[in-house]
């Protein structure tokens, strides 16, 4: 601790050079970041502390300070917590499956076993160019019991039923993002110096052993990065289930936390919706942060 503070003190003493240039470089982003990131966060917190009061039954509604009233309502809101539980279950299953799939494909692409790498790399990445809304519309038809080209299967096994629709949505998200995550891991694999593997190969290790004991540990930072983005994405889940609402009644108006926020704000009950947004943002932040710290700790040992 003491050793790190010494150079910092030294840096403070030297005057800052190029002040004007630094200001020019920082200003545009800083202004926009303050206006469209920091201000909304502050606004959401402010709005979430308000309650609506009326003078009598037909009086004019007035927003007054209500302390943590909305947060108590959020914590009592069973539909919201059911939605949180649903995306948590979704994340626990979908994120490892997707990243495992992406890792296997990246390792295969990086191994000498596969020919035609350029083609596969592009073929797997193409779904990333499909927006979530479009992907959900497409898969909605593929799941449909009568319009699907796989109707022989989908007419007998309902993929849009209340018990299955969450996993049907998980498949849409997986389909879109596997290739993207694969490319991030694959780029990390390409960046590894090949001398590392030479020694292992000379010792007689096969591709599987090299992958498990050398490659995977070395690309862990890339996997952690993809995991964090996937966790954030899962808690934010909105477009795909929202689209599925026009294919099936199994997706309720509070299916995911974000759909619950949207539905609540349309009531309109903006203060409660703002409190939900804040709870959701804090939960996302904490989860990604904890995951980051947890994996870093593990990596150090």
């Amino acid at each position, binding site marked *: 601790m003491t050793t790190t503070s010494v150079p910092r003190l030294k840096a403070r003493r030297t005057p800052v050079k190029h002040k004007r240039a630094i200001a020019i470089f920082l200003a545009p982003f800083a202004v926009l970041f303050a206006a469209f990131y920091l201000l909304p966060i502050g606004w959401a917190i402010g709005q979430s502390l308000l309650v609506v009061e009326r003078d009598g039954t037909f009086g004019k509604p007035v927003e007054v300070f209500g302390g943590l009233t909305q947060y108590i309502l959020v914590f009592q809101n069973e539909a919201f917590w059911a939605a949180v539980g649903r995306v948590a279950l979704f994340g626990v299953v979908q994120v490892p499956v997707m990243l495992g799939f992406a890792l296997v494909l990246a390792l295969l692409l990086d191994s000498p076993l596969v020919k035609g790498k350029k083609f596969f790399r592009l073929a797997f990445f193409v779904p990333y160019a499909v927006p979530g809304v479009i992907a959900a519309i497409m898969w909605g038809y593929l799941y449909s019991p009568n319009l699907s080209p796989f109707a022989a299967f989908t007419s007998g096994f309902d993929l849009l039923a209340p018990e299955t629709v969450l996993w049907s949505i998980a498949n849409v998200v997986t389909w879109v993002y596997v290739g993207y995550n694969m490319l991030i891991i694959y780029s990390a694999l390409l960046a590894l110096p090949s001398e590392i593997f030479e020694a292992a190969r000379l010792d007689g290790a096969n591709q599987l052993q090299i992958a498990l004991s050398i490659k995977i540990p070395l690309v862990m930072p890339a996997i952690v990065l993809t995991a964090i983005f996937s966790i954030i994405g899962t808690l*934010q889940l909105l477009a795909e289930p929202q689209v599925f609402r026009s294919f099936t009644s199994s997706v309720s108006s509070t299916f995911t936390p974000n759909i619950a926020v949207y539905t609540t704000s349309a009531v309109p009950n903006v203060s409660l919706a703002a409190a939900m947004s804040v709870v959701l943002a804090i939960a996302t932040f904490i989860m990604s942060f904890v995951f980051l710290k947890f994996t870093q700790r593990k990596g150090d040992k």
Partner: protein
Amino acid sequence: MSQISAGAPKEKLASRTAAMIVMGISTLYFLVPIWWLFIGSTKSREQFSSTAGLWFADFNLFTNIADLFAYNDGVYLRWMLNSIVYASFGALLGTLFAAMCGYALAKYRFPGRELIFNTVLGGVLVPATALALPLFLIFSQFNATNTFWSVFLPSIVSPFGVYLARIFAAASVPDELLEAARLDGAGEVRTFFSVSRRLMTPALVTIFLFQFVAIWNNFFLPLIMLRDQTLFPVTLGLYTWNSQVNQIPEIRTFVIIGAFLSIIPLIIAFLSLQRFWRGGLGAGSVK
């Protein structure tokens, strides 16, 4: 364990075949849905539901496209144009601002530098959808919801772009070069635009592309902000059409062909720029 590593040729053939089977099945998984969408776009409304989904019937692609473009005074073309404007100008400005900020954080020492960087990093972890509702509330204070700017301005901000730009500037712009430029009497801002920007090009293309995709795919913000359908991006437009299919069945053809046409620009952008973004993609993960 040691006998596995013998690496007999037979075993090699077996693992090679297994690897290619995995790759083949994966290719089908990723491409069959898009193939289906393409086939669906070539069919008339009757044949869409009556013929096999994965192969051609009568080739109606161009009639379908003409009908789509004519429907509702060509609102689909309007949506595509909107998406292109939101995404390309938003990503362009966003990349420029993120690059300048990341560059300053990487190449200059000043008090508060780490604080700014950590705040921006925190911004990466804040879900964009959590901002959509408060942004709506703020814009409604200024009666500015349901406008072009209400969707465009918030899309410009890319904290992840700043993060990538900082890593890339630190790695690819040598301090000696900046010193040399200073000795030549070039100003800091000019040096950035003439020298450093060029060295950072792979990162900039990456930031641009990923922000372009993020804006193109954005759904919650336009959903919450916009009522006027002439301002819709194509994702929101197709979403509203798709939710009307049960009332207006003939719209289904337009949803299918519209979905197919809307993914073509992004696929082309990715394919044509891949030599840039592939280099930049790994940068975020390699510290």
